[in-house]
């Protein structure tokens, strides 16, 4: 992912100067699923309004219209978005995928009821259209109705239970609501779906630490440790996490001698890695990091 971002930044700089390949830039943004709406809207609209540039896109032009429409909506450029959606409607008059964009146009204006109508009519014919169901979740969230968003997500997950993006989104909303146990459950599902994903182990550990208590700290430490392993020993949050858990376990109520003995090794190793990394990459902060770890 790191090299991808560097490449995108490089292309973006060229495109900003007017010498870059806009089509390639837009394609890379799509591939990496980045949200850089003002650049995409600006350069995308310029490209689409230029008929020879548009022709060079070939069949990709429709994907670009969709991408630029969404970016324009994100920047509140409703006229530009309408232009793109109009072109798509002409080409695909009965498409539910374009219907979604029409609904999103209403959403961007805050016309929630009209958006609801658009989605309701699509759902009548296609009651399990995942894209439209996701819009209902997004609308609830956009209106600040977090519990409504939770309901919609739970309904969606009954239909699409392996959709890890939704489990992650649900976890994020639970966390915003400070419903930590429910967020933890979501991460358990995420780890089932993708057991080798270090970020899911990390997220689960962070939630358990937040809930607190000796047993949760011990479990958190295990998941921080597996996150370290799965990330090739590189994830700084996991390295720090193991140390924080060790310190927490040493101070926790209800601990016994056995707990303390088991506690010692992993975090010493982690602390050494952290100190070494700081000496190499952030020498000005090295003594600060070291003194925190000693404490």
């Amino acid at each position, binding site marked *: 992912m790191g090299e991808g971002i560097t490449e995108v930044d490089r292309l973006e700089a060229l495109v900003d100067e007017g010498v870059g390949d806009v089509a390639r830039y837009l394609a890379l943004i799509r591939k990496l699923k980045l*949200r850089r709406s003002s650049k995409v809207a600006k350069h995308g609209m310029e490209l689409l309004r230029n008929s020879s540039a548009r022709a060079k896109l070939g069949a990709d032009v429709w994907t670009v219209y969709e991408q630029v429409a969404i970016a324009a909506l*994100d920047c509140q450029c409703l006229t530009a978005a309408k232009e793109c959606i109009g072109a798509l409607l002409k080409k695909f008059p009965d498409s539910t995928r374009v219907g979604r964009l029409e609904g999103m146009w209403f959403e961007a204006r805050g016309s929630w009821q009209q958006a609801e109508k658009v989605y309701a009519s699509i759902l009548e014919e296609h009651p399990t259209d995942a894209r439209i169901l996701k819009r209902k979740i997004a609308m609830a969230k*956009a209106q*600040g109705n977090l519990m409504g968003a939770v309901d919609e997500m739970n309904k969606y997950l009954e239909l699409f239970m392996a959709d890890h993006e939704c489990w992650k989104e649900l976890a*994020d909303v639970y*966390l*915003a*609501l*400070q419903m930590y146990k429910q967020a933890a459950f979501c991460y358990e599902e995420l780890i089932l779906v993708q057991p080798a994903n270090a970020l899911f182990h990390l997220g689960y*550990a*962070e*939630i358990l*630490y*937040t809930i*607190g208590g000796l047993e949760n700290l011990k479990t958190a430490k295990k998941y921080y440790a597996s996150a370290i392993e799965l990330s090739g020993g590189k994830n*700084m*949050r996991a390295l*720090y*996490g193991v140390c*924080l858990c060790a310190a927490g376990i040493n101070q926790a109520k209800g601990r016994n001698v056995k707990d303390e003995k088991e506690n010692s090794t992993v975090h010493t190793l982690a602390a050494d890695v952290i100190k070494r*990394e*700081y000496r190499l*990459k*952030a020498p*000005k*902060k090295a003594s*600060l*990091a070291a*003194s*925190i770890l000693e*404490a």
Partner: protein
Amino acid sequence: MKYQISQTAYVKLALHALKHRSAAVNGILVGRVSGGGGGGGAEEDSAATVSIVDCVPLFHGQLGLLPMLELALTQIEEYFSSHQEGLSIVGCYHANERFDDYDLSGIPRKIGDHIARYFSSACVLLLDNRLLESLAKAGKKPAFSQLFTRDSSRGWRSAPGSSDLVLAESTANEILYDYILEGREQSVTDFDDHLDDISKDWLNPGLFD
């Protein structure tokens, strides 16, 4: 108790919020108390001022988790108490995810509560987008934050008038406006960025060059 915010702190926290427009952000306020009887303990001591001298941008996106928050607070307190005399954590700032959300939610309240255990005049600044729109005309008052302080029942309330927030330097809004035109917000580093790449410094040393 009066509250004053330096240009450095004010511009930095605004840029942090602007860098992550579609996410909630938060950070720590660092400063000192001057005037009055001392130590930030006496609510009736209206001669005293809490000066917010600097801030440390913390996180963007996911703000509700404890471990990295604890780590950050420890590092910030350690750094400022040993490198900058008399400076300590005096509060926090928070910007909600949605542009039309003006509520102080549970997470900034909890962080504020934690800080208040060590500094009873702790404040929470909540960024308000309505006020950001009027940035160009703001002049002396801070453009876009509501100040919350703790009342006697340990709740957080916004109290215009007696607990107003004042800009220490009158040029702050102009400088911020110029920086926005330049896109300087892209240069802000928060604690999340540091954890992703420790060579990035959460003290933001070159930000105002």
